[in-house]
């Protein structure tokens, strides 16, 4: 595993049909989407997508005038949901990591939790989690 999970964030206005239009654009390409999460704010939302070809997704969106950006996020494989999630959150917090947001990714066989940390913190987080026997998942593992 070389790269962390590449998450695509897309700006959408809180108007009806906006989300559908974006999803439509991506699904027309041959891109496999692993997870979708809509984070809503006052008058807009940020659509966060994890897929197997983030560059193509980004290109198709940009060519249609959508605003998007690619962010690196930490993926952690979790076997048993309850215990492990609390355990991972515990390790991250004890080591001073600030969890900006988190959500789950669909993967047959496993749960993968995605954590957004501060920029540049991913490598250190990966080291610490791995040393505690917790599996960190990267973009190629999806």
């Amino acid at each position, binding site marked *: 595993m070389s790269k962390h999970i590449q998450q695509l964030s897309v700006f959408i206005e809180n108007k009806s049909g906006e989300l*559908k239009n974006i999803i439509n654009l991506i*699904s027309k390409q041959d891109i496999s989407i692993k997870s979708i999460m809509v984070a809503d704010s006052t008058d807009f939302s940020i659509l966060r997508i994890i897929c197997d070809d983030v560059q193509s997704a980004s290109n198709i969106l940009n060519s249609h005038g959508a605003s998007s950006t690619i962010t690196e996020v930490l993926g952690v494989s979790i076997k048993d949901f309850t*215990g492990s999630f609390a355990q991972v959150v515990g390790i991250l917090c004890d080591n001073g990591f600030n969890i900006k947001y988190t*959500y789950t990714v669909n993967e047959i066989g496993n749960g993968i939790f995605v954590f957004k940390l501060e920029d540049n913190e991913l490598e250190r987080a990966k080291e610490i989690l791995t040393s505690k026997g917790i599996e960190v998942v990267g973009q190629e593992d999806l």
Partner: protein
Amino acid sequence: MSYAIQQLSVFLENKPNELLAFTKILKKANVSIEAIQLVDSSDFGLVRSIVDKSEVAKEALHEAGFSVKVTNVFGVKIADKIGSFNKILKVLAKNEINLFYTYSFYEEKNGIFIFCVDAADFEKATNALVKKEFEVVNSTYFQ
């Protein structure tokens, strides 16, 4: 047939360890988290979770001083993710359902997509999806 799944929304200050405190309480109450989503906003975060024992969770969180709100959401089982997710959005848009947010999670062999719509549109949304032969999970699914 009730499709309303109780989602707990908990307000978290953007302070360190707030999320940890939340997960610890649920663990102590022996509540299993089926799906969880932490959303960042301006000066606070919102944890949305679906658990197996929502009443127990609510009690435990209240006692620990957290602000908890329960929202009715519905879940749709999807085998193939993209195509169906797109189709679901089409059904909702056609019926003029206002979608607040959505997230997905893994459950055994399936993906489940959770949708939060305007309370007034809830029945219309679930009926429309059932009619189009989508598998909307019933409210006791996670218990």
